[in-house]
Each structure stands twice: as structure tokens, then as C-alpha cells.
């Protein structure tokens, strides 16, 4: 019995919540669902990602080159190769971040339109 009461109470609550939400959406003309909440801070995050990605690739490449140089005794050639590879990798990473971001914002704008 208690179980039943609980179920009807929760159903009732669901129905009332839905009613309130619909009334709110009709009244204000906008969805109560948080679709673009924090959009600005997300952009800030993408900017920071790109900035660090540019450095990290170069550092990783140069470090690997330097260590390989110490190991093989080929100073400074592998450092140069590693630096160039690191630059390429950094550009690739930045490109990927930007590409993913564009895909995401395109998908978001399509959701908004429909």
C-alpha cells in the first residue's frame, strides 16, 4: 500500500512539474533547458587549449630529439629533426582542436535551429 502511495505521489509530482515547465516556457518564450549555458567560458577553454597545444608539441618534439641526441651522441642533428617534427605535431594538434570545435559548434547551431 505504502509503495502504491509513493508511486502515485511521484507520478503526480512529475505531472505537476511538467505543467509548470510548460507554463514557464509558454510565458517566457524560451526553453528552460540549459542549451547554451556557459557558452562563453567554453570558448575561453578552447582558446587556452589551443595556446597550450602550440607549446606542448614543440616541447615534446625538442625533448625527444635532445634525449635521442644524448643517447646516440649525434648532437645536434636529432634535436633539429625533433624540433621540426614537434612544430608539425603542434600545428596538427591545433588544427584538430579547431576542427573538433567547428564540428561541435555546427552541431549545436543545428540543434538550435530545429
Amino acid at each position: 500500500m505504502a509503495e502504491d502511495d509513493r508511486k502515485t505521489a511521484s507520478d503526480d509530482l512529475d505531472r505537476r512539474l511538467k505543467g509548470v515547465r510548460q507554463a514557464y516556457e509558454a510565458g517566457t518564450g524560451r526553453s528552460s533547458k540549459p542549451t547554451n549555458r556557459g557558452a562563453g567560458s567554453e570558448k575561453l577553454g578552447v582558446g587556452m587549449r589551443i595556446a597550450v597545444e602550440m607549446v606542448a608539441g614543440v616541447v615534446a618534439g625538442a625533448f625527444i630529439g635532445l634525449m635521442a641526441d644524448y643517447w646516440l651522441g649525434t648532437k645536434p642533428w636529432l634535436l633539429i629533426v625533433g624540433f621540426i617534427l614537434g612544430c608539425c605535431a603542434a600545428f596538427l594538434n591545433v588544427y584538430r582542436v579547431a576542427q573538433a570545435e567547428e564540428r561541435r559548434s555546427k552541431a549545436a547551431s543545428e540543434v538550435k535551429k530545429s
Partner: protein
Amino acid sequence: MASPLEQFAIQNLSAPLFSIGGHHIAVTNSAVFMMASVVAASGLLMAGASKGAMVPGRIQAMSELFYEFIANMIRDNVGSAGKKYFPFIFSLFIFTLFGNVLGMIPYGFTFTSHIAVTFFMAMIVFLGVTLIGLFKHGLHFFSLFFPHGAPLFTAPILIPIELVSYLSRPISLSVRLFANMTVGHVLLKVLAGFVVALGIFGVVPLAVLVAITALELLVAVLQAYIFTILCCIYLNDALHLH
């Protein structure tokens, strides 16, 4: 004026407990704040989970918010295959978040402003994700280093570049968190120094300081979010290749 970097100094708060390889290990202020973040996080989550009320109270709503936030993040970025790793990702997020936010308390210590801490966390994620990928896909995992559909003669250039790009992940992951936290706290300290030095005109930097503090709070939460979402993205790469 105190040096703006003084706040990052590690201090031993106890006598050395034991030593590893000649290094005396003691309880430091960094360790205390790590423990505080674990205690605060588990306290909050346990208080939220203990009641299990149908209509959540404040604390329960807060912990449910955390849970749903990470659950959605994993579902969106990794898919259903990522459900297994929810506990790890969730702990990572909560630990970083509490570390960043507790560091915003005056006289507090931000352990995420040390590259040793963030690089260690990034390395665990990096190695873990690589091992997961290797166990799941075997040698096929290495196809991650050669983009699908690229002409074969480009392999000598592309494979080293992809390899370096992959190895740069823990660096970018750790440097981002560490640099953001360090820079923010140095900025706060320098501006606070101006407030004292300018006397009555210190009101101007004080106003800026209030705004910067709010910004730092945003950055603290945002960096925890970015750290976690990147772990999800890396996990997705390892689970599904591309």
C-alpha cells in the same frame, strides 16, 4: 613586499616520516591540502548520498549535479563503452576541482599549481589510456599513428609527427592546468601588492582584484573541467581508435 612565488613553497609540516632514495618524506602543506580536498569531496558526496531522498535537498542536489555532469560528459565523449571508467574520471574531476577551489581560499595552498602533481596525474591518465588501448586492440592500436586513407608513401613523415603529437598529450594536459593555476595566483599576489603600495589609491587595484578573484574562480572550475574532458577524449581515442 613578499615575493609572489613564495606562496608556492613546499613546507614540511612534520618531522620526516621515512625516506626513499635519500629523500626524506614528510607531511607537507601540499599533502595536507590534497588530503583536505579528498576529505571535503568525500564528505560532501557521502552527505549527499546518505539520505537518498526522493526530492533532493541542497547537498544531495549538489552531489547529483556532479554525478550527472560527469556521466553526461562520458556519454557524450566516450559513449557507453566509457561507463566502466566512470569512477576514475569522476575521482579525477572531483580531486582537481576541489584542489583548485580550495586553493582559492586565502592562505590556502594550491597543489595543482605544481607541475610535479599535474604531470603525475597526466602521466597516469596517459599510461592508463595507452594500456587500455593496447589491451583492447592489441597491435592494431598502432594504427592510431597513421591516419586512415593517407597514401602509403607519406608514412615516413606522418608516423613520427603523429607519434610526437601523441607523446605531447601528457605535456599539454599537465602544463595547461599547472600554468593556469600558477599564473592566476601570481597575478592575484602582484595586484594585492599594489593595493598595499599605493596607499589610498590602492582602491583601484582592489576593485580589479575583486574582478580577478571571480575570474580565477571561473578558471579553477574551468580547468578541472578541461582536464577531465580531455581525459575523456583521450580515452575515446584509445577505445575507438579513428
